[in-house]
């Protein structure tokens, strides 16, 4: 597939690491949750390649109970997109930072303004799970101009004809949705996780990361047998909610070790 001529910061880094035989690990952490900055630092120190910072939304339809709870707790603690981006500036970690938020956060701020706010906070990429390809044009145009890489999601339900269209618009990496369902921990890795990653790897050289339903180190390793890496959300957030930043660091370290074979 043809792709943008000049890959951005995130994609350049991911391609280079992949070329060096490295599997990519992106933990998700809900911004604004008490202790979130320490969790980001711990994850970075434990070997994360990038961090996905969640800007919580009142109605997170792609999220299961753990991330719903984290989002609600953060909102009740007074988190806003502005406060989270302000706190992001003081993180001082050396790996790239992406944000995950729902489209109304972007829409309400305005595309250009939101893209500028992200860039101003040192964010390099954005994931907007309720903004599918057909509706993504205005945001992507603003993001491209501001140098924000828009990660596109690919889903197991996509017919073969749809995947190349999604991949062609993906910047940074392709987020290969691991299962039919919302975020949350599962006992086993769904067969759809590796099946979709395989379909994507066959049509693109943009890094392919599996997310949603990758629940532990063993599942991450299984996903990485096909994919270039994993995004891990609910499993990380459960540890943050239960055990704080140290527990996040330990977990990310375990996953790092498991996929670095």
């Amino acid at each position: 597939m043809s792709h943008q001529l000049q890959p951005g910061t995130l994609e350049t880094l991911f391609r280079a690491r992949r070329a060096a035989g490295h599997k990519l690990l992106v933990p998700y952490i809900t911004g604004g949750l008490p202790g979130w900055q320490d969790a980001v630092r711990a994850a970075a120190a434990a070997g994360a390649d990038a961090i996905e910072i969640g800007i919580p939304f009142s109605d997170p339809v792609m999220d299961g109970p753990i991330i719903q709870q984290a989002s609600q707790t953060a909102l009740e603690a007074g988190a806003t997109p502005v406060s989270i981006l302000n706190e992001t500036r003081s993180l001082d970690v050396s790996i790239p930072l992406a944000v995950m938020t729902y489209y109304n956060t972007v829409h309400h701020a305005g595309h250009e303004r939101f893209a500028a706010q992200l860039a101003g906070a040192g964010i390099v990429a954005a994931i907007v799970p309720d903004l599918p390809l057909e509706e993504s044009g205005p945001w992507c145009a603003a993001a491209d101009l501001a140098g924000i890489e828009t990660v596109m999601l690919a889903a197991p339900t996509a017919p073969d004809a749809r995947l190349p269209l999604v991949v062609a618009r993906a910047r940074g990496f392709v987020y290969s949705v691991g299962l039919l369902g919302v975020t949350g921990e599962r006992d086993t890795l769904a067969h759809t996780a590796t099946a979709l990653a395989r379909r994507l790897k066959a049509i693109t050289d943009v890094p392919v990361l599996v997310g949603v339903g990758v629940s532990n180190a063993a599942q991450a390793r299984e996903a990485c047998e096909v994919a270039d890496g994993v995004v891990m959300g609910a499993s990380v957030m459960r540890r943050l909610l239960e055990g704080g930043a140290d527990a996040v660091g330990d977990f990310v370290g375990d996953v790092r070790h498991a996929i670095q074979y």
Partner: protein
Amino acid sequence: MSLMAQPSDTGRFGEFGGRFVPETLVPACQELEAAFVDAWADPQYRDELHQLLRTYAGRPSIITECHNLSEQLGIRLALKREDLNHTGSHKINNVLGQALLAKRMGKKRIVAETGAGQHGVASATAAALLGLECKVYMGAVDVERQSLNVFRMKLLGSEVEAVHSGSRTLKDAVNEAMRDWVATVETSHYCLGSVMGPHPYPWMVREFHRVIGDEARAQSVELWGDVPDVAVACVGGGSNAIGMFSGFVDDRTRLVGVEPAGGAAVSRAQPGVVHGMRSYLMQDEYGQVQEAHSISAGLDYPGVGPEHSYLASIGRAEYPNVTDAEVIDAFQLMARSEGIIPALECAHALAWIVRAAPEMKGQTVLMNLSGRGDKDVAQMMDVLGG
């Protein structure tokens, strides 16, 4: 061409509508759109739906002149009696259409959200009739205040799940139904209950409710020799209102959609994106969706269907709002004056009519009585003190 024709290819009514769903659901929405277009053009499907509406739902619904209220208010008031449909509301029109469509698509299961329980009961009914499995999501607050409808759904063989997240009302029931659909999209159809959600729902559900407006127009002409001066309906998502408006939108009739004061999305006129659509939405300065507050579970929704936002934005329809106190008065007024206990949702429409009557002297006013009030009796016993 009618002002309420097909939306654009991207499901837009003006700048409202669209399809803002997780990637997982995009193919399902495309499949549904194709299936609806195909079915709607298929005489066999249309005939089957027509037969069900006639012999099962009890259509056409009548219109009733309100002689007592007309005299009291100085207007000529008539009611479109959707409360007399099987299951007690207009919701059956949409549900029969979607359940037939689900079967046509080979789906074995439907998922629905419900506020007051009217759409949930209608969905459970259609599922029982047509042999589909049915799961209904209902906010925990609504489960509490509409326990009769919860039991009704269970009697009809459906599973009802109380939703404890967020405001624990209709908004959160929609979230949970969408989460279910994301996980079960290969076997389940999301039987959405209003003219909201991602394309093609706002359009498709409107077409299923167009029968209200078509009948009402003919009945008005028969009763008054003309279309009404004013057509009034309550608006939560806005399905009964859109059905009513569809009959008169190209006429001179003044169109009025009445929102609850605590859920007045159109009055605030702030566009937002939630539940798959761009429409007017109650939200804070950062775009967090705000909780609606209404005595009526069916109108307890912070958004509104996109076509209503469009009709409001071009000035074709108006969307005033009424308070819970006005609604409680109107609820009792209709019961005492006409011997009809209206659903609390519909009491919103009457509350506005009562307020606006002095400026409508002598005018013909057609109100959509979209549901009966039996479900609200227990709640009103608490409010009014038995």
